[in-house]
C-alpha cells in the first residue's frame, strides 16, 4: 500500500495529464506544434510592431530632445497640442487635404473603371497609361509638379497664359493659401486615382454579365444599370479602397513637403509635415510622436466602423 507521501507525485502527474487533455480538447491535439509554427510570426510582430509602437507611445509621454534621455511628462504633450493654434490648423488642413483628395479620387476612379469596361479601342494601352501616375515614384511626381506649378518657369502658367490665352497673367499656384491647398490636393488626386480605377475595374469584371442582361431585359437603361447593378456590385471594394486611401492620404508626407513644406504661412501644413518639422526642425521627438499619435484614435474608430460594415456586407 502506498504511503500518502508517495501518492502526492502521482496525484500531481495525474493533474498535469488532465490539464494536458483539457488543453488538447480546446486547442487541438497538436497544439504544441501549432505554437511552434506561430512562434516566429508572434516574435516578429512583437519585435517589429508591438515594441516600436509601445515605445512610441512611451516617448510621446516624455520630453525628449535628440541625444538627451527622455523626461516623463505624462500627457503634457497632448494637452499642449490641443490648445496649439498651429496644430489645430494642421488638423483642419489634414482633413481638407484627405477628404478633398479621396472624394475626387473616388469619382475619377469610378469614371476610369467605367471607361475601361466599355468597348474602347486599345483598352490595354489606356489601362497602362492611366496606371503611370500610380507606379511613378511620389518624389519624382512631386518634383515634376513643383516645376509645373512654378510661376515664371512652370509649364502650367505657360499653357494658360501664352498658349491658350485663358489668363492675362500667371497664377502663383503654390504662393496663395487657396491655390496652394488645391495644388497639393490635385497632385495627390493625380497620383492616387488609378488605384481606385484599377480596383473598381477588377470589381466590375467580377459582376456576372447575366445581371446586366436581366436588367436590360427588364428595361433598365445605362444609368439604372449603373445604380442597380454596378454600384451594388462594387460596394465592398469601394469601402475597402476608400478606407485604405483615407489612411494613406491622411499620412501622406512627400507631396506636401516637396511642394510647399506646409507653406505659405502654414496654409498647407498637415500633420505628417508638422510631425517632421517638430522632430527634425525642433528636435523634440516626444512632442513629434504625440502629433503623429494624436489622430490615431479617431482614425482607428473610422477603421473599426468601416471594417465592421464591410464584414456585415460580406455575411449578407
Amino acid at each position: 500500500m502506498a504511503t500518502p507521501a508517495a501518492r502526492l507525485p502521482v496525484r500531481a502527474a495525474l493533474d498535469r495529464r488532465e490539464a494536458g487533455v483539457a488543453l488538447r480538447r480546446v486547442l487541438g491535439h497538436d497544439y504544441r506544434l501549432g505554437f511552434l509554427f506561430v512562434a516566429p510570426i508572434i516574435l516578429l510582430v512583437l519585435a517589429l510592431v508591438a515594441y516600436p509602437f509601445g515605445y512610441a507611445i512611451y516617448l510621446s509621454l516624455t520630453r525628449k530632445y535628440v541625444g538627451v534621455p527622455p523626461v516623463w511628462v505624462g500627457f503634457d504633450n497632448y494637452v499642449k497640442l490641443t490648445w496649439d493654434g498651429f496644430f489645430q490648423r494642421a488638423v483642419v488642413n489634414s482633413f481638407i487635404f484627405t477628404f478633398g483628395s479621396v472624394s475626387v479620387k473616388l469619382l475619377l476612379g469610378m469614371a476610369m473603371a467605367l471607361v475601361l469596361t466599355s468597348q474602347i479601342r486599345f483598352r490595354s494601352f489606356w489601362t497602362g497609361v492611366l496606371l503611370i501616375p500610380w507606379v511613378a515614384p511620389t518624389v519624382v511626381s512631386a518634383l515634376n509638379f513643383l516645376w509645373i506649378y512654378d510661376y515664371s518657369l512652370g509649364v502650367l502658367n505657360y499653357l494658360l497664359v501664352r498658349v491658350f490665352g485663358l489668363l492675362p497673367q500667371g497664377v502663383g499656384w503654390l504662393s496663395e493659401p487657396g491655390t496652394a491647398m488645391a495644388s497639393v490636393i490635385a497632385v495627390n488626386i493625380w497620383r492616387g486615382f488609378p488605384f481606385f480605377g484599377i480596383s473598381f475595374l477588377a470589381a466590375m469584371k467580377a459582376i456576372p454579365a447575366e445581371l446586366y442582361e436581366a436588367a436590360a431585359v427588364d428595361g433598365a437603361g445605362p444609368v439604372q444599370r449603373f445604380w442597380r447593378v454596378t454600384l451594388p456590385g462594387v460596394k465592398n471594394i469601394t469601402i475597402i479602397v476608400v478606407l485604405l486611401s483615407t489612411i494613406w492620404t491622411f499620412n501622406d508626407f512627400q507631396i506636401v513637403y516637396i511642394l510647399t513644406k506646409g507653406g505659405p504661412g502654414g496654409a498647407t501644413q498637415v500633420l505628417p509635415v508638422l510631425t517632421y518639422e517638430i522632430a527634425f526642425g525642433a528636435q523634440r521627438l516626444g512632442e513629434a510622436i504625440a502629433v503623429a499619435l494624436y489622430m490615431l484614435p479617431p482614425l482607428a474608430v473610422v477603421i473599426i466602423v468601416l471594417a465592421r460594415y464591410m464584414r456585415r456586407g460580406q455575411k449578407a
Partner: protein
Amino acid sequence: MDQRLHDLTEQLDAGLIARREFLRKAAVVTGGTAAGLGALRTLASAQPKTKLRVWLFKSFVTAGNEVLAKHIEAWAKERKVDVETDWATFGDREQKFVAAIEAGNPPDIAEMNIYGPMRYKAALRDVSKVATQLASAKGGHLPFAERAMKAEGKFLGVPRYSMTTVFFIRKDIMEAKGLKPPKVYDPDVVEFARKTTDPAKDLWGFGQTLNRSDDGDGFMSNILWDYGGGVWDKDGKPALGTAFLKQNTAALQFAVDTIKKHKIQPPGVMGWTDVSNNEAYMAGKLVTTNNGASLYYAMVQKKHELAPKTLCVLTPGGPAGSFVGSSCYNWAIFGKSKQAELSEDLIRWVEDESRFNEYVQASVGQAGPVYKARVDNPYWKSDPNFDAILQNILRSVNLGYPGPMTPAAAEVQGQKILTDMAGRVVVGGLSPEAALKEAHGRIEEIYKMRRA
C-alpha cells in the same frame, strides 16, 4: 630554439628516444610551428584596417566636394585607414544626424553647419585642443566662428569655412537704367527694383521669398537686425514681441510691403523654396536677389551668359545698420567615437593650408575664411565679386544676436518661425503686430522648454 626541440635533444642525448623517433617528433614540432606561424601571419593580415566613418556636407559646389573627397582619400591611404564616407545635403543632413544619434550609431566625425554643435552638443566631444592648436597656427579664429563653436567654454566644432550670402545684381540692367548698387533696403532696393521691374516681360526687380526656407529665414533675421530689432535681447531672452516690438514691426512691415505694396517681387514668390531664386535669377527673371556664392559658382562653372553680367555687393541694410547672419561650417567629433585622435588627425590634414587653399580655389567664393590668416589669402582679390563675400563674412553676426547663440535660438531657426510669421501676414491676413505676438508666443514656449 624551441623548448620542445631542446627537450627532444636532451632525451636523444640521454638515450631515452631513438634517432628515428627524434627526427619524427622534431619534424612534427617544426612543421607545426611553421604552419602555426603561417596561419597567424594570415590572420594578422586579415585583420581589418582601422575604420573611420566620416559624414560630409554635399554642397552645391561640386568641385569643392570632389577636392575634399580627394584629400580624405589621400589621408586614408597615408594613414592606412579604412574610411567610410557618406554625404548629406541641405535637405537630409539633420534627419541623418538625428537618426544616427538616437540609434546610438553616429559617425566618428562629421562636417556640420553652424547650428550643428549647438543642436547636437549632448552627443559631441570636446575638440578644444585641436581647435585652439589650429587657430593659433592660423592667426586665431574670426570672432563669430569662435563664439558659434563654443558652448560652456568648450569647442564642440573645429571651424572650417564660412558660406555667406551676398546681394546679386544684374549689372547690365543696372547700368542700362543708370542705377547704382543699393546700400539700404528702404528706399534704395525698393527704388532700384521699381525702376527695373517689368511685369510684361516677367522681369522682377527683387526676388526674396518669405516662405519656409533657409533663404527666407535668413532674410527675416537680417531685416529684423537691420531695423534695430531681433528675436533675442542681449541676455538671450525672447524680445521679438516685447523689447524690440516697435523695430520688428517696422521690419516685418517692410518685408511684407516688398510683396504686397511695392509689388517688386514675382507673384509666386511666397511659394518658393531655397532653389527657386537661383533658378529664377539664372533664367533672367530677377534683377536682384540674396543668395550664397553657390549661385555665382553655378554660373561660372556653366559659363552661363549671366556670369559676367552679375555684380555681387554687400547685403543692403536698414536704419540700424547692415547685418548678415553668420555661417561656419565645421568638423565635429561624436562622443561615441573610439577614433577621436584619428579624427583629429584627419582635421589637421584637411585644414592644412595648401590643401585648404586647393579647396578654396575650387569653391568659387563659397569657402570663406573663419581664421584671421585666411582673410589675407590673395584669392579674395582675384575676382571683384569676392570682396563682397569677404566683407559680409567679416561683419556677420551669430544667430541669437545681440545675445549669445543658444539651443533655443537654433530651434527657432529650425522651426522657421520667422518665415511662418511673415507668411501669416502676407497670405494669412494677420496684422504685423498680431503675427509678431503669435510668433513671440511660440518663441517664449521654446525658451521655457529649453531652460527646463
